[in-house]
């Protein structure tokens, strides 16, 4: 593989973010005229690898060789100049500019120092045509296009730069089935033209159809490369897991409480094409997990329960009765008793410059005040209880919460909501980016809260957590519940294969809803 035919090579690439190791001596060889698929779990290091190739992130160590010469990219512009175009998961389009403006953005055609709008129009039309999207009007504003079309524009934009290497990072995740078919034709044609394509996707059926070579990443390393078709889906899943399994979880109660009346339930819940006819119920004492790949509607489901989304169809039921919740303020009212531990503690959970005390009290000010005046003695008492309950390590209640470690910050977010003694606890990936010790405490706490009668709905991107913590797991795919796993059925293999929407026997169903 190594030698004259490699267009681009990465050798010994490492990258750390703080104490977290994203990539550790990773290697990759890219050849022209081939589609190279990259597989791996969430957090396996794929995105970091791509960002390094695209010049967005600088590696701590390692070298990159393009056509025999060592290269170092100072920024995205440098990588683009070298012929590497990347289509990112998070779109890189400017919403207020037109499609044509966006397509030629890196290097617009100019006459006398000004942008030649006619030439720009021609280039944009040609690029849209190459991307199989001649129906998109070049003068339309990007922000007026639906997400699926924007992603096609993103592909056209990358093609307009005439790259040698094209990286697609989950580039089909928002596409409709019709668009995917068109894009696949485009990609196959580009391969024939001799372009090197890197294809990152969680969709096994897409990889099976497109790829020539596959490389599996795990824990920041490339663990295996193989020719497409030479491994079964089961083998691939094994390679993606391959981790030691640590027993850090509290024991689950023998008799699950699901025969009790549900506290929280929904019927045929749909929203804006992102949630599709979801029905579920959670009883008191139960910990129910939400699984699946990132971005399949889990976050939206939690937000829907918490009153953040408008225009929902279907019913949300509390204690069996339909309710309408128009805001988080309504969802946290004492008769509903809901709490949401958000995904991003820095923006949605905490006011970082404010004190631990203020942050702990924010959600419970109604309970801590008399006649709208905060009872500071009661506040002090309740805050101290919370510090004890969650063993939050802080130099005091008056220091800014931003000064605490990540794990302790997360505990403050949880404590802030536990202060209300919620009956329904929604958690959105609460252990992301925190240390193992704190994780273990959070697992024990969740189980204790459930034992005290709370209904817990818990989204996690970490399969171990779902296996270790949950009585049941609902796996979401493309906004719908694909599978419900109970008790011993909850295994890493079952979670991953249902998350990837493949069945156990290695057969590839069509995109959605094709299985019985």
């Amino acid at each position, binding site marked *: 593989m190594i030698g004259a035919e490699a267009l681009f090579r990465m050798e010994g690439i490492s990258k750390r973010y703080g104490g977290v190791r994203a990539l550790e001596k990773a290697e990759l060889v890219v050849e022209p005229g081939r589609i190279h698929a990259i597989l791996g779990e969430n957090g396996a290091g794929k995105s970091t690898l791509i960002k390094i190739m695209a010049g967005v992130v600088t590696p701590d160590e390692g070298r990159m060789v393009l056509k025999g010469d060592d290269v170092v990219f100072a920024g995205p*512009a440098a990588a683009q100049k070298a012929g590497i175009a990347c289509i990112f998961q998070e779109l*890189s*389009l*400017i*919403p*207020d500019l037109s499609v044509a403006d966006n397509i030629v953005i890196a290097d617009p055609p100019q006459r006398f120092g000004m*942008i030649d709008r006619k030439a720009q129009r021609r280039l944009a039309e040609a690029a849209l045509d190459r991307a199989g999207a001649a129906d998109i009007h070049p*003068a339309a504003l990007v922000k007026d296009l639906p997400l699926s079309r924007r992603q096609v524009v993103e592909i056209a934009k990358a093609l307009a730069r005439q790259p040698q290497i094209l990286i697609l990072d989950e580039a089909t995740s928002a596409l409709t089935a019709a668009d995917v078919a068109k894009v696949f034709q485009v990609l196959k044609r580009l391969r024939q033209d001799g372009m090197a394509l890197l294809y990152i996707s969680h969709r096994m059926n897409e990889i099976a159809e497109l790829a020539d070579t596959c490389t599996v990443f795990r824990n920041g390393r490339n663990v295996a490369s193989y020719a497409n078709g030479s491994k079964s889906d089961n083998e691939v899943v094994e390679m993606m897991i391959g981790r030691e399994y640590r027993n850090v979880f509290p024991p689950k109660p023998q008799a699950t409480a699901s025969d009790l009346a549900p506290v929280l339930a929904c019927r045929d819940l749909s929203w804006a094409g992102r949630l599709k006819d979801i029905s579920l119920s959670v009883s008191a004492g139960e910990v129910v997990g939400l699984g699946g790949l990132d971005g399949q509607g889990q976050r939206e489901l939690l937000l829907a329960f918490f009153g953040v989304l*408008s*225009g929902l169809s279907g019913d949300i039921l509390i204690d069996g009765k339909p309710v309408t919740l128009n805001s988080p303020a309504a969802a946290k009212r004492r008769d509903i008793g809901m709490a949401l531990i958000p995904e991003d503690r820095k923006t949605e959970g905490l006011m970082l410059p404010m004190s631990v005390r203020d942050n702990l009290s924010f959600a419970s000010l109604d309970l801590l005040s008399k006649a709208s005046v905060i009872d500071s003695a009661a506040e002090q008492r309740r805050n101290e209880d919370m510090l004890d309950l969650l063993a939050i390590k802080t130099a005091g209640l008056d220091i800014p919460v931003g000064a605490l470690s990540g794990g302790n910050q997360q505990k403050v977010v949880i404590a802030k909501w536990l202060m209300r003694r919620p009956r329904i606890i929604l958690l959105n990936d609460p252990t992301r980016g925190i240390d193992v010790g704190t994780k273990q405490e959070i697992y024990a706490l969740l189980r204790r809260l459930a034992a005290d009668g709370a209904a817990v709905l818990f989204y996690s991107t970490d399969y171990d957590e779902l296996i270790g913590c949950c009585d049941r797991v609902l796996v979401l795919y493309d906004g719908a519940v694909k599978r419900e796993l109970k008790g011993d059925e909850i295994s890493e293999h079952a979670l991953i294969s249902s998350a990837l929407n493949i069945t156990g026997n290695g057969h590839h169903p069509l995109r959605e809803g094709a299985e019985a």
Partner: protein
Amino acid sequence: MRDWRYWLAEQRGTLIALAIFALMFTIYISNHPAGLTTNVAQTAANKGTLLALVAMAQTLVVITAGIDLSVGAILVLTNCIASMVVTGNAFETTLGVVFVLFVGALCGALNGLIVIYGRLQPIVATIGTGAIFFGIALILRPLPGGTVNETLADAMTGKVFGIVPASLLMLLAIVLVVWLPFCSSVIGRAAYAAGSSETAAYMSGMPIRRGKFAAYTLGGLLASIGGLFLTFFTYSGQASSATASTYTLLSIAAVVLGGVSLFGGRGSAIGAIFGAFAFRAIGDLMFVFDFDALWQPLFQGVILLLAVSIGALGLWRVRNRLEWFG
């Protein structure tokens, strides 16, 4: 959709500003005792042009999702400098004009450097620099006074061929020489892109820094043309804090009325020009209807709020309430 409909959508803000201006100006003229004479047009044009220049300066910065609270201070500072150097024979006067414009561009460039490299928020940076610019103006001209080349001043505030207000021709020239080249250059597009989504612009490898720097510098330059024009108007210079703060606030109002988004990335200086003229026309309505001048700020405020509310209607359609805050 056809091409013209996209064009219409893109120019919507500008066209609304034009419509508001046309409506207000028509009401004004039809109630004016003298009707539309060349003198009435000349007065309206001169008053509108002064605000339009400052509003254009503000537009450039607002497009990058910034705001320039020093724009009024640059106007006053360049007014004071112009009242000292724009005099004498033709050569000296020309040199003086060039110097005034240079000072304006320098002020804008300083704002840009602080915002881009100092990573200060534009609002803070320009409050600071605004105070400095005004302070310098006060030191240069502690008392109102000075002179200006009156031939030039009269020519610029007068009429060409006895009909067309010279100020409008100057505004047209500025649009042709400064604005159009800016917004159709790569630099200008980078300024828009940075205002719309700085992350996406960075990821696309655009020259964000140069775009922002150009926007701030040209903003300073346009404010100094306003300063020159104020001097032509008054034949003198005055370090007036009322003038500085009034023009800063009115420039923001005119920009908003002109369909420029304060979130950045959207709008045009041409819209801001119409916004400025519309705002002036609203103020003038008070006089033809014989209202007490004391009502003018209140009336202008109500009109401004009504105009801006139209732009906020879209929020009612948001389906994820978190987008209210984003």
